[in-house]
């Protein structure tokens, strides 16, 4: 799952560094991801994992690190 998240970040995150170089809990916004890039990441994740984030997950925090994205996707997978 993490590899797939990294691929989405590489394609949509418009980060100045390679997502592979980031730690699991590193703040993606601090690493240079803009708010606009974060919504591309959100839509990219929905596409890649064939999920739809529910309203309560549409927050800045959910897309703020690889770990927080994985936790949200885990929760959706468990609920499915």
């Amino acid at each position, binding site marked *: 799952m993490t590899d797939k998240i990294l691929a989405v970040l590489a394609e949509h995150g418009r980060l100045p560094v390679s997502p592979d170089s980031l730690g699991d809990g590193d703040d993606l916004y601090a690493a240079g991801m803009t708010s*606009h890039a974060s919504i591309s990441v959100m839509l990219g994740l929905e596409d890649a994992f064939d999920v739809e984030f529910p309203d309560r997950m*549409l*927050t800045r925090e959910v897309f703020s690190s690889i770990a927080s994205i994985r936790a949200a996707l885990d929760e959706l997978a468990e609920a499915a």
Partner: protein
Amino acid sequence: MAASALDVPQATGSQGEFREKLVAEGLLLPSSVPGVTGQGPAFVALRHRLDRAIDRLLANEGAVAMEFPPIEPRHDMESVGYLTSFPQLAGSVFAFHGEEAEALQLGEKAHAHQDWSGHLQAAGLVMVPAACHPVYPALAHVGVPAGGVTVDTGPAWVFRHEPSDDPSRLVAFHMRELVRAGSPDTVGAWRDDWRDRALEFLQSLGLPAAFDEANDPFFGRSGKVLARSQRAQKLKFEILVPVGGDNPTAVASFNAHSDHFASVFSLGADVHTACLGFGIERCVLALLFTHGLSFDDWPADVRAALS
């Protein structure tokens, strides 16, 4: 033909009744399209009174005047991400580039009120959606001085495609903005200072104005992330006044952009920007709603403040 009621956000509370009174008194001059509203002489006079009061409010600000037309290069709107955030509000100019035979078809369709948009092509121009937008590329051109700069746009026409029966929600209206560009700490302090000053100013006009945290109407599900992010970071404040609706109406807003515009237009390594905007028509409507439709009957101190 007027858009049907289904196409238009309905007025809430006493907004519809208020609009009818404004029209009956000749303050507003309605068109066949909701939100596209002319202004009669008494309304224009009030707008000018308010502008002069804002001039006095800004007397010691040292703001630099910059004025722009209500259209801007499409490229600038694309660069700042407006079409990601607010595609539903944007206005784009399309123009005819064809030959005479096609012009004839266009003319015939237009005369019959049929769809002639297929004959047009994007003209590279968009409607300015906020008075501050043209300021940033202009600052890139003239440079931001070491101590920062404050720009006064004057009352500028802006466009938001959100037709409504609410008299306070216009498709085109005047927005007067102050834009501050400078170091991050001075820009933050400037915005907080002006939030208090603008609130005091509006209260001095007898308006029951209150301040609140806010977010912009970002488009779609993904827009929720932007809206919540904006609130969580306290990037936007508004000053709200009851203008007849179920909820109070924002008449001024304060926005912190961090380095968003500064990085898009290369304003400098350590430059942040912020802006404060007065919705001029909304301020006038709030005054009319609060004090009544005739300026001569308003409280003496309010009339003096708007002399």
